[in-house]
C-alpha cells in the first residue's frame, strides 16, 4: 500500500535515522579506512620521522628539530634545488598562461578547420612524461638534435641545452611548453561562456578588437586563469620525472629540483628522517604560495555572480 502524502513528507524532513546514519558510515568506510591508513596515519608518522634520523636498518633515533635546522641553514643543495624549482615554475607557468590564452583566442574565431587545429594543439599534452622525456633528450641533443639543426638553418649556433648549466632549466621550460594545449580546453570553454551582449554593447560604444580583448575577454577569463595558475604552480613545484630521467639534476645540480632531491635522500640514501623534513618543507612552500595566490585573487579575479560589498 503506498504511503499517504503526509507520511512521505514527514519521512523526508525528519532527522537522520540511526539506520540511515549506519548505512552512511558503512558506505564511506573504505574512504575512512583509506584516509586513516594512507593519509592521516602517514602524515602523523611523517612528522615523527622528520624529527628523527633513520636509515631503515638501525632503529630510528629522535633528534628534535635538527633535520629542519640543517635543511634551512646548512644544506646549500636544498637551496639550490629550491631556487631551480622556483625558477622553473616562475618562468613556465606564466608562459603557459599567456600562450594558452593566445591560442584559445585564435581558436575561438569562427573559421573553418578549427576542430583540427584544436586537436593538433591538444595532442602533445597527452604524451606521458616518460615518453616526452625520452624524445626531448634527442630534440635537445647538442649536435644531432633537431632543435639545433632548426636553429642552424637560421644561422644560429644553438647551446648544448641539457648539458649546459645555463640552459638546462630553460630547456625543461621549452619541453613543458609542448604540453601547452592541456590548458587550452578550459580557456576555450571560458571564452565561449562570455555573453554576446557584452561585445555588442561595447561595439556600440566604439570599442575596437584590442579593447574588447583586454576589457571584456580577459577579465571574464580570470577565474579560469586563476584555476590554471594554481594548478600550474602546484604541478610545477612537484616536477620530478623529467629531471630524474633527462638530467639527474645535472649538470652541476643546475636542474636539481626539490622532489628529485627528496627522492634521492629517501630512496637512494635511505635518509627517511631528512626526506620527511624535506617533504614538509615542500608542503609548507606549496601552501604558502597557494594562499598568496588566493589572497591576491580578490584584486584580479572577477566572479560574475559574486556580490561585492
Amino acid at each position, binding site marked *: 500500500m503506498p504511503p499517504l502524502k503526509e507520511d512521505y513528507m514527514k519521512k523526508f524532513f525528519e532527522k537522520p535515522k540511526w539506520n540511515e*546514519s549506519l*548505512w552512511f558510515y558503512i558506505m564511506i568506510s573504505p574512504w575512512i579506512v*583509506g584516509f586513516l*591508513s594512507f593519509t592521516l596515519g602517514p602524515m602523523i608518522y611523517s612528522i615523527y620521522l622528520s624529527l628523527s634520523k633513520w636509515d631503515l636498518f638501525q632503529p630510528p633515533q629522535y633528534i628534535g628539530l635538527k633535520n629542519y635546522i640543517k635543511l634551512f641553514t646548512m644544506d646549500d643543495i636544498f637551496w639550490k634545488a629550491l631556487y631551480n624549482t622556483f625558477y622553473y615554475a616562475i618562468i613556465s607557468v606564466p608562459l603557459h598562461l599567456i600562450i594558452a590564452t593566445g591560442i584559445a583566442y585564435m581558436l575561438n574565431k569562427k573559421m573553418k578547420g578549427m576542430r583540427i587545429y584544436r586537436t593538433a594543439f591538444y*595532442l602533445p599534452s597527452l604524451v606521458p612524461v*616518460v*615518453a616526452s622525456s625520452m624524445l626531448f633528450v634527442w630534440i635537445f641533443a647538442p649536435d644531432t638534435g633537431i632543435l639545433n639543426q632548426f636553429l642552424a638553418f637560421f644561422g644560429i649556433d644553438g647551446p648544448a641545452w641539457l648539458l649546459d648549466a645555463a640552459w638546462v632549466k630553460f630547456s625543461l621550460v621549452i619541453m613543458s611548453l609542448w604540453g601547452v594545449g592541456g590548458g587550452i580546453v578550459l580557456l576555450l570553454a571560458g571564452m565561449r561562456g562570455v555573453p554576446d551582449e557584452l561585445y555588442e554593447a561595447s561595439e556600440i560604444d566604439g570599442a575596437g578588437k584590442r579593447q574588447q580583448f583586454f576589457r571584456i575577454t580577459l577579465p571574464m577569463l580570470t577565474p579560469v586563469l586563476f584555476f590554471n595558475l594554481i594548478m600550474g604552480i602546484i604541478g610545477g613545484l612537484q616536477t620530478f620525472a623529467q629531471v630524474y*630521467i633527462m638530467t639527474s639534476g645535472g649538470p652541476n645540480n643546475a636542474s636539481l629540483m626539490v622532489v628529485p632531491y627528496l627522492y634521492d635522500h*629517501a630512496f637512494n640514501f635511505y635518509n627517511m628522517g631528512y626526506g620527511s623534513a624535506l*617533504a614538509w618543507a615542500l608542503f609548507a612552500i606549496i601552501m604558502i604560495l597557494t594562499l598568496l595566490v588566493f589572497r591576491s585573487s580578490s584584486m584580479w579575479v572577477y566572479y560574475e555572480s559574486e556580490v561585492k560589498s
Partner: protein
Amino acid sequence: MRADKVTLKEKTVLYIIMTGFGLLLFAPFVYMISISLATPATNAKMAFSLIPRDFHWQNYVKVFTDSDINLGRFLLNSVIISTFAILGQIFSSSLIAYGFARLRARGKKVLFMVVLSTMMIPAQVTMIPQFIIFRYLGWINTMLPLIVPNFFGGAFNIFLIRQFISRIPNTLDEAAKIDGLGYFGIYSRIILPLIKPIIATVAIFTFTWNWGWFMGPLIYLNDIEKMPLALGINILNSTSNVGATPDWNLVMVASMLLTIPMILLFFFGQKYMFEANITGANSSAK
C-alpha cells in the same frame, strides 16, 4: 557564441600563425616516429632525422620477440596495474560518493570537508611513510602498493561523482525505497546505472594517471619483470648492453607504445575527458 566577423586578411594571418604553431607542436611527434623506425646502423651513428629516412618496421616486432627487451611483459604489467586501479576507483569512489550525496548522517559535512582538503596534500608528504608501511607489510617489489590504495577511493573522484549524483532527481531513489529496496540496492540498481557517464570519466582519468605514472613504480618495483611500461622504458634506456650505444630506436618504439593508448583514448573518449575537466574546474576554483 557570437559569430565574429573575420576579414579575409585576418583569416590569412590567423591560418598562417596557427599552421606554423601546429607544425611546431607536431614536429616532435614526427621525430619520435622517425627515430622509432631507424635502423641499427643509423642508431649506432645517432644520425636521426626529422623526416624518416629508414622504415625499419622490424623494430616494432623486435621489442616483443627479443627476450632481453620483452616489451610485452611491460605492457602486460601496465595493463594489470591500470585495470585494477580503474576497478578499485570505480567501485569504491562511487559507493563513497553515493553515501555523501544521498544519505543523511551526523558528521557528514565535516567528513566531506576532510575529503576535499586531502586533495591539497602533496603526495610527497605521505610518500615516505607509505613506503615504510608497505615495506612492513612485505609489499615492496610487488604491484600491491600501486593497486590496493585505489580500492579506498580517491578524493577527486569522490567529489566528481558526488556532484554528478547530486544533479539526479531524488524521486527515483524515493520510489525504490518505498518499493522496499535498501540503501545498497538503491546504489547498485538505481544510481550506478544512471552515473555511467561520470564513471567513464573516472575510468579514463584513472587510466591516464596510472598508465604514465613513473614515480610510484620507481619507488616500489625492483624486478624488471614486474615493471610497467613507463618505468620499463627508463630501464631500456639505461641498461641496454653496457658500453654500447643504447638502442634509441627501440626506446622510441616503447615511447610510441606508451603514447598511442593515450591518443586512442582521446579520440574515443574526449567527450568524457572534457566533462570532468569542466565540472571539476568550475566547482573547485570557486
